[in-house]
């Protein structure tokens, strides 16, 4: 059965401030009504007394509710500020963590061609030090090793080029971001994991996709979180990571879908909650989706989830297109 849920910001089960506001509206009129009823019993005709009582009760209620509301609003704003500060700090830290992970992956990517070059050079030394007199064989071996070193230099050059395209992203919180390019670059960051997990990528990117407003660094974090979740869902079994972009009205919709086991329907409402994770404490802190949603909402967007148990999940990130549709200038052409 397909389960579709829209995102909602995390709310504790019964917010105490909202409860307080409800009591502030209900309790004072009842108390005032009863008090005045007792004090004025027998002093005026029943109808006049009731009308007067209702007016006094309502006025009291509004006054008390207003006073409480001001405090409630102030308190809620403070809580919101604290939450924003926490998420902001966490987003900064997880960006550092993904840089750490990326450097681990770069080290691995670089060490493989280096290891091959090391062997080729070693083999050339072996040939130079050897006593093999077959000149033709030695010449062929030399040519083959030199060619191989050139091939591996090409691999290293490609890795360096990729690293440069990441660091060219500016960190300004505003500006325009071209989502298709950002998606391609973000995919580089998970390339090693893609190969290791046997996941293949299917891209359907709308070539006419307009730019969106936002910081490329924070949006990349959203995309990276969703891609990593998708890969985790397919760990050990492989599958397909489908990435789709489309313009829908005045918005851009990015869909990141996996072919994993899907999300159990009883967990669907909880996946955006902070610290909620199904990956176990060692592998997830339960903040990836919370932060992704927070970033997306701050940019005026939303995240919707579709999941079919047994055949995967799709996360749709919808973002408003940039007000000015001028071609973005701050993401360099990676190709």
């Amino acid at each position, binding site marked *: 059965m397909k389960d579709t849920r829209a995102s909602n910001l995390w709310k504790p089960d019964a917010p105490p401030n909202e409860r307080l506001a409800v009591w502030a509206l209900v309790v004072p009129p009842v108390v005032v009504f009863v008090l005045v009823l007792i004090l004025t019993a027998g002093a005026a005709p029943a109808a006049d007394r009731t009308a007067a009582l209702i007016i006094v009760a309502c006025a009291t209620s509004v006054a008390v509710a207003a006073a409480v509301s001001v405090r409630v609003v102030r308190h809620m704003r403070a809580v919101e500020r604290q939450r924003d500060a926490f998420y902001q700090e966490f987003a900064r830290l997880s960006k550092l963590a993904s840089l750490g992970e990326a450097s681990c992956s770069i080290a691995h990517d670089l060490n493989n061609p280096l290891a091959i070059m090391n062997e080729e050079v070693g083999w050339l030394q072996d040939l130079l030090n050897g006593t093999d007199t077959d000149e033709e064989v030695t010449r062929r071996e030399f040519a083959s090793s030199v060619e191989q070193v050139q091939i591996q230099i090409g691999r290293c050059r490609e890795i360096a080029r990729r690293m440069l395209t990441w660091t060219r992203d500016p960190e300004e919180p505003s500006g325009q971001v071209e989502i298709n390019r950002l998606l391609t670059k973000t995919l580089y960051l998970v390339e090693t994991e893609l190969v*290791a997990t046997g996941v293949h990528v299917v891209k359907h990117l709308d070539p006419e996709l307009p730019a969106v407003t936002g910081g490329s660094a924070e949006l990349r974090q959203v995309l990276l979180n969703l891609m990593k979740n998708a890969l985790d869902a397919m760990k050990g079994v492989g599958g397909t990571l489908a990435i789709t972009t489309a313009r829908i009205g005045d918005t851009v919709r990015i869909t990141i879908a996996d072919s994993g086991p899907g999300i159990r329907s009883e967990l669907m409402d909880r996946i955006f909650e902070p610290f909620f994770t199904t990956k176990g404490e060692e592998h997830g802190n339960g903040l990836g989706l919370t932060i992704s949603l927070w970033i997306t909402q701050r940019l005026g967007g939303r995240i919707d989830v579709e999941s079919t148990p047994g055949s995967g999940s799709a996360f749709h990130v919808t973002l408003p297109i940039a007000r000015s549709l001028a071609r973005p200038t701050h993401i360099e052409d990676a190709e």
Partner: protein
Amino acid sequence: MTNVKLLLVDDEARFVETLSKRLTARGYDVEGALSGPEALARLGARPFDVVLLDVWMPGMDGLEVLKQIRRLHPSVRVVLVSGNASITAAVEGIRLGATDYLLKPVEIEDVMAKVEEAFEKKRIEETDETE
């Protein structure tokens, strides 16, 4: 030092090819495999003393292959080789029964030293068992 039967497992074909040539030139009996399943098939086909095993391979990763080797061929010694200086993988590998750990790029002298050490451990173990 010679006659050690060595299986070299890595998804980088050229790495397997050239390191095999160099080790063969130094008197080792070397075969190569480009994936976990291929390595397991070769181990099932003939005996080996030591396996040089890449940790990070597509499909079945090195640690999974290590588990299978330990289960199916417990007398074979495994030396892990990784392009990633991750201490976690090394610790996990040793916990799963690997004899040692090498970091890419590897120097041929280091490879030989680790292989000899692993072979020596295997030999002592076998002598103990027969006594």
